[in-house]
């Protein structure tokens, strides 16, 4: 990807000479040496003095997040400071990964990396994001805010659109998908009602060819059962379990599967979705940890648990997302086609 060039503010000598030459041959574009510009003219990096720090908002995966005002445009931005705790290895790998992924993604429901601020003397690197007013977790915990059915539907639709984009984006020549950590705290919402997926600190590019990754990736409450059972292959269906959990959370206003350790988490999943059998989760007994975990036999209760919250279509969609077998879980594009989004109340435009 090449950075966009800004307008040349200082017309060079060369340019003027070229202009007079090309007066009678208007079809040839005059050549302006782009190299003459100072590197500050390339977009993508800026100085820390362009920002005025306001207050600390939170703690990200690898650094603090500050609210700041851009002195040039007067807009509010969120500055995420990358901690250089491991001084010996320079910029941490996670940060490089996140920058690389964010630079290639451009979608209205995914947080956009505006620029990067480098302070070389103090060895500080800040990532600049647009300032978002809320996150989904905060909204749901706030007793004054009650999400209406339409709002729920609109937010969830945006989440699915963002997810679909991620799953279909060729992030890398050799890699196919991106897998991000879905959790309510990572879904940011601004005052215009736009939801954006944020925080790719734990994301990594996924290769369908069976690259094996550690399974400590998705936040525990949103982790699918196959990861607890020791599956090491990453697919986009892992994200869809997280999306399902967030969908349930939108109705219940609190986390639906709050396990306090891995075993407890798995127990809660099987309580809700029934115990794994040959029929609802083929090959589950071939996963590495399946022998060590005792499973209590129980029926599937997704429909019963959420009966009192929402309409028939919503429960049907949730029922298809929270499926034990990763191969049978709905994909993001399939979920967007579900009847839920085509029945009353219809999802509205985010600004309304």
């Amino acid at each position: 990807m090449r950075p966009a060039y800004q307008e040349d503010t200082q017309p060079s000598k060369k340019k003027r000479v070229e202009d007079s030459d090309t007066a009678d041959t208007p079809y040839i574009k005059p050549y302006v040496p782009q190299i003459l510009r100072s590197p500050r003219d390339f977009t993508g990096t800026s100085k820390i003095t362009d920002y005025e720090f306001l207050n600390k908002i939170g703690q990200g995966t690898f650094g603090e997040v500050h609210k700041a005002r851009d002195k040039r445009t007067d807009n509010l931005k969120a500055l995420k400071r990358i901690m250089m705790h491991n001084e010996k290895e320079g910029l941490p790998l996670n940060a490089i990964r996140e920058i690389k992924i964010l630079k290639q993604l451009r979608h209205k429901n995914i947080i956009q990396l505006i620029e990067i601020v480098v302070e070389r003397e103090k060895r500080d690197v800040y990532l600049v994001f647009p300032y978002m007013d809320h996150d989904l977790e905060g909204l749901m915990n706030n007793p004054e805010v009650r999400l209406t059915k339409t709002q729920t539907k609109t937010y969830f639709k945006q989440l699915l659109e963002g997810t679909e984009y991620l799953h279909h984006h060729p992030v890398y020549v050799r890699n196919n998908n991106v897998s991000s950590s879905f959790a309510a705290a990572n879904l940011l919402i601004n005052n215009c009602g736009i939801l954006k997926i944020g925080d790719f600190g734990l994301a990594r590019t996924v290769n369908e060819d069976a690259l094996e990754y550690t399974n400590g990736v998705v936040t525990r409450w949103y982790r699918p059962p196959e990861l607890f059972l020791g599956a090491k292959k990453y697919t986009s269906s892992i994200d869809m379990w997280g999306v399902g959990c967030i969908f349930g959370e939108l109705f219940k206003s609190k986390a639906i599967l709050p396990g306090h350790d891995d075993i407890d988490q798995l127990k809660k999943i099987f309580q809700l979705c029934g115990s794994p059998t040959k029929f609802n989760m083929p090959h589950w007994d071939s996963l590495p940890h399946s022998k060590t975990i005792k499973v209590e036999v129980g029926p599937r209760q997704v429909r019963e648990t959420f009966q009192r919250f929402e309409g028939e279509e919503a429960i049907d969609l949730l029922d298809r997302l929270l499926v034990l077998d990763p191969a049978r879980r709905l994909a993001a594009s399939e979920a967007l086609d579900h009847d839920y989004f085509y029945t009353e109340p219809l999802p509205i435009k985010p600004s309304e």
Partner: protein
Amino acid sequence: MHKEDSKNTPSILNGMRYEEELLYRMRGVCLIQIVGYRLELPVHSVATASTLYHRFFTRKSFYDYKYTRIAQACLFIACKSDESSRRAQDIAKSWTYKPKETRSEKAIAKFISDLLYNELLVLEVVCFDMSFEHPYYDMLEFVKEVGKKVTQYG
């Protein structure tokens, strides 16, 4: 990038000859390749490092920055961004490698601190663009295609 940009790089504007600049570019890339070979890096990472190196010196002059230092930093970044991470220590050792000589601890520590400083410098100048589409994969496919045709008709 315009074709004529290659004759108007910052180094040339500072008074370097075109051939001289090409030579410096070649030296830097050679260094990257040799060290990449020693570290047993995949070709992909070496290519990324070379691209970073070229990009850096289309924006900065060879007179202002020492090309060996920049080449080190490029290799270090390429290692990290292509998921084939090597420790800074390893790069330091294989960079200063000479057959019958062991480098002192102090020299290596100095090397690493330089490396970390230059890393941020390079990243800032290339605007953190670290994902390149290398033509080699398409080229490989093409060669395979041609090979098939040749065996069919030849």
